[in-house]
């Protein structure tokens, strides 16, 4: 399975896919020291983003979220790669600061092509997502 995507920040990443159907607020919604989602009643509350390939429709909330993503990357607890459902300056800027590859993809295609939790390779140089075989 190879899915073509648009590159926002180049690089390669490999990891277990974590699909969030809900937007994530990085400022206030994610523990900046561990990468665990702490937002009350978020479907992924308690899940750790660390070294996952995060597929998320967008971010929500404060623009300070960019700085939080940068901090996660510095501590080595950020997602290894991000798949965005729509253009999102907060996540993109934070990921660029932290050196995390980012692509833009159709979330419906992600949901129909991949299983949550399976290992994928994010090729954010040529713009594709591959299932690891």
């Amino acid at each position, binding site marked *: 399975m190879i899915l073509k995507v648009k590159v926002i920040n180049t690089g390669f990443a490999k990891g277990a896919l974590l699909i969030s159907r809900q937007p994530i607020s990085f400022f206030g919604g994610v523990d900046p020291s561990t990468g665990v989602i702490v937002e009350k009643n978020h479907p992924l509350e308690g899940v750790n983003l660390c070294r996952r390939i995060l597929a998320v429709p967008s971010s929500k909330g404060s623009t300070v979220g960019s700085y939080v993503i940068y901090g996660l990357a510095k501590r080595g607890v950020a997602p290894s790669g991000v798949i965005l459902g729509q253009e999102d*300056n907060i996540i*993109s800027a934070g990921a660029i600061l932290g050196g995390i590859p980012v692509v833009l993809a159709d979330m419906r295609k992600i949901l129909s092509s991949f299983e949550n939790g399976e290992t994928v390779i994010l090729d954010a140089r040529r713009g594709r997502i591959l299932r690891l075989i």
Partner: protein
Amino acid sequence: MKKRVTKKVFKKILDSIQTGKKRYIKISSAHLSGISYLNIGDAGLEFLEDLSRSGLKFKVRTTINPGCVDYSSAIKCDPEVVEKQKRIIRSLKNIGAIESLTCTPYLFDNPLKRNQKIAWAESSAALYANSIIGASTNKEGSLTALASAILGYTVRTGIHLRNGKKPKIRFEYEGELKDEVDCGLLGYVMGLKAGTEIPYLQIKKCIGSILCYKQLLAGFGTSGSAPMVWIENLTPGFSRVKKPKRKIIIDRAELEEEKKILSEEAPLFHSNRMIFVTGCPHMSLEEIKSFHEALRNIEKLSMEAWVFTSRNVYSEAFRRGLLTDLFEKGVRVFKDSCIMHCSLKNSGIHVITNSVKAAYYLRGSLRLKTTLKSLKELVDEYGGK
């Protein structure tokens, strides 16, 4: 990760907001938001300190928004917040920022000319720059403005395009604007209706004071995302602009409806602590003068009042003796900080303000109760005799 912050990173940030062919435009001035420790927290502090260590410098005149602490004030804040706010400002100064600490940089610290291309964050300042002075800036985010300040250019999108300033929607307001609160509410309602589109505004009964337009634009910037408002008889070049055909009439009732959401009845007795807060955006010298004038015949306000302004206006007002008079009447004047003040967090204080923008953020971010009242109402109701 031991990655240094580099210029390349900032170029990528700018590129990420522009789809298709990358085109840039030189800027001659930048203004940054995201200065307050209450807002950016440890994550932002850490990033700015890393940036300051990287050796990169701002390429253009760069001013900064207020923080959350006025060091010289008697109102004290958590020492940790004070220390961290200092470190944020120190880092920015290292990179070359002017320590303006104001949301009205156009008054003194970062003066503008018509048609000047700039990258300003802080929505109320960007709207003022475009709509009142006739400069050109998109409504930048904290990081895109920072990137432009470092690089000396921004991406040619939005308002920088050939027809980027063209108004797409016309608003007509037929009611009366009796004070600055009405003006803020009108701006707020326009922002809700305009979304991303630049509006052209016609007001039947034009009130002359610039304070009104300052509040109108700050309200507009709170609810809308367009970077400017064409104001008939005010915005430079308004007469040459083609008025949009699509027209929306706004009436008084719509203003009252939004007011209900942002403002509740002030408690009659001072069961909870109540303060009056003004200076969002920061007061100009003229505004302080007229507030001083309004309090002329009053011995002391029966409620504590807080005024926020820039350090430049503060020194000038102090030199003229205006501030001493205000102190005597129970008015505290703050500089370097704003209504999102460190001491208001978790304070449970009921805030009365003449700023729609202030009411919106005090309710949303600091979870305080707010009431909207104009300066005149403050003097009438709490002036005593």
